[in-house]
């Protein structure tokens, strides 16, 4: 019975969607209910709860005064949103989504409650985009819950066939994965067929291939925060391109995932979350103590 609803790569997923004439979100929901002894209603309800935690993390990051543990970052999400509202940023919805994503990373670094999607360090991308699209296009709960199942399918394929861990694959495995998940999710929200969704996911991942994980001070603050903003904009533009071109692409999603895995494996350990290389090992941040960036009392 499981065989009919299970899939382990994008090729099988697309075949399943075509055979049953269903979107990716439905295929993921069917897989979940057939594999994990959970009813459709319970799975949808749990995803709605997850969506609400995402919404809460966006809202509280924009309204509350946050106490960041490291203090390398703080307030950038609010500053960007203020610019979007007052002066109009370069791209309204994209900038708004990026502002929300940056806020969620601040909220995470303040011991706020977040949804790891797929990880805590990349937790801003999905909620940032969902919140901005919900505002701009008035998607209802049902559409947004489906969108998350779609994103989950893409994340599952990356996690199963490569990795979702910065310690194993660098930032491409975290923000790269989140961005790919989001790109596919956006396509389904705007009526893109399954091949269009996965083309967008593949493009988004392709654009972030090779990105290292080099957290300053070893903390989930910088460069994570701005990389989440980048993950947002990359997802949105990848989705837009895929929707415009009908998902035309040279390298299918499964192969992009394999490339990401191989690149991650060949990445020196200094660039895999150890804080021993990259931006974390630059002269400017070497003597920086947590809190220095925002406090400035000693300057």
């Amino acid at each position, binding site marked *: 019975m499981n065989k009919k609803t299970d899939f382990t790569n994008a090729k099988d997923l697309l075949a399943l969607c075509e055979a049953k004439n269903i979107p990716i979100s439905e295929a*993921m*929901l069917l*897989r*979940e209910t057939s*594999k*994990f002894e959970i009813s459709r209603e319970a*799975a949808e309800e*749990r*995803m709605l*709860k*997850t969506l609400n*935690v995402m919404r809460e993390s966006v809202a509280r990051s924009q309204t509350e005064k946050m106490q960041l*543990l*490291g203090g390398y970052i703080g307030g950038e999400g609010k500053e960007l949103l203020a610019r979007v509202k007052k002066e109009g940023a370069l791209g309204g919805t994209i900038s708004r989504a990026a502002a929300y994503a940056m806020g969620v990373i601040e*909220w*995470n*670094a*303040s*011991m*706020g*409650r*977040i*949804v*790891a*999607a*797929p*990880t*805590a*360090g990349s*937790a801003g991308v*999905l909620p940032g985009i969902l919140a901005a699209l919900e505002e701009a296009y008035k998607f209802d709960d049902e559409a947004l819950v489906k969108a*998350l*199942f779609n*994103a*989950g*399918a893409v*994340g*599952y394929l990356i*996690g*199963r066939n490569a990795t*979702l*861990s910065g*310690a*194993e694959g660098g930032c491409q495995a975290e923000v790269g994965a989140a961005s790919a*998940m989001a790109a596919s999710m956006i396509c389904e929200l705007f009526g893109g067929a399954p091949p269009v969704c996965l083309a967008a996911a593949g493009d988004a991942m392709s654009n972030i291939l090779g990105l290292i994980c080099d957290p300053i*001070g*070893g*903390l*989930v*603050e910088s460069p994570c925060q701005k990389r989440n903003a980048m993950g947002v904009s990359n997802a949105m533009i990848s989705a837009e391109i895929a929707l415009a071109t009908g998902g035309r692409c040279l390298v299918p999603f499964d192969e992009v995932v394999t490339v990401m895995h191989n690149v991650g494996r060949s990445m020196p350990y200094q660039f895999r979350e150890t804080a021993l290389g990259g931006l974390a090992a630059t002269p400017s941040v070497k003597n920086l103590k*947590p809190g220095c960036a925002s406090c400035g009392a000693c300057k």
Partner: protein
Amino acid sequence: MRELSVFDIIGPIMIGPSSSHTAGALKIARIAKMLAKTKIVSVRFQLYGSFAKTYRGHGTDRALVGGILGYATDDYRIRDSFDWAKKAGIEIVFEEMDADIAAHPNTVDITITEENGEVSSLRGSSVGGGEIEIVRINGCDIRFSGKNNAVIVRQNDKPGVIASITKIFEVFNVNISYMSVFCEENDETAFSVLEIDGEFNDLGMEAICRQPNILSAIYIKVK
């Protein structure tokens, strides 16, 4: 390989900032708490590797204390766990260790003292993505992932003892999903870790403790 659920990908819901340094740390301490049978009066945390270097910036300390208080990984009380521990009359001590213990970089030793003077200890590592491994209990090297409910038994290492333990599970109609036995250095005593499907109860635990050659038994309830 364990199958990934959509909620492994879009989730878990957790207090930030780090699945390994915050959520994973809490899970280790929550298991340590279960070693105590009476009220806990003091806890010492000895941090190794990355835990020792970055614990403040990751809220690892607050998460560990939250675990001792039995909180879930998405409980906002983790933020103020030191205050809650103080109110509960639990003394907390943190030590940053230099020693290279050749274990996983994110490792903590937790020593718990109860009001009756009983002392228990546990070593756990946070191995990534919020997954953990308990590698030592009360001085004995073991392996336990903390994913399933488990009964951990300390016994005299004699023939028939393990059979007498597993018999109890049969009587209580509880399936053992995974079992491993770890011998202590003295060769006279051993630890059995019995992971189970579903739940166990006090009556079952009493029955295990009544068996000959059983020195102690702890029920670790993780779900």
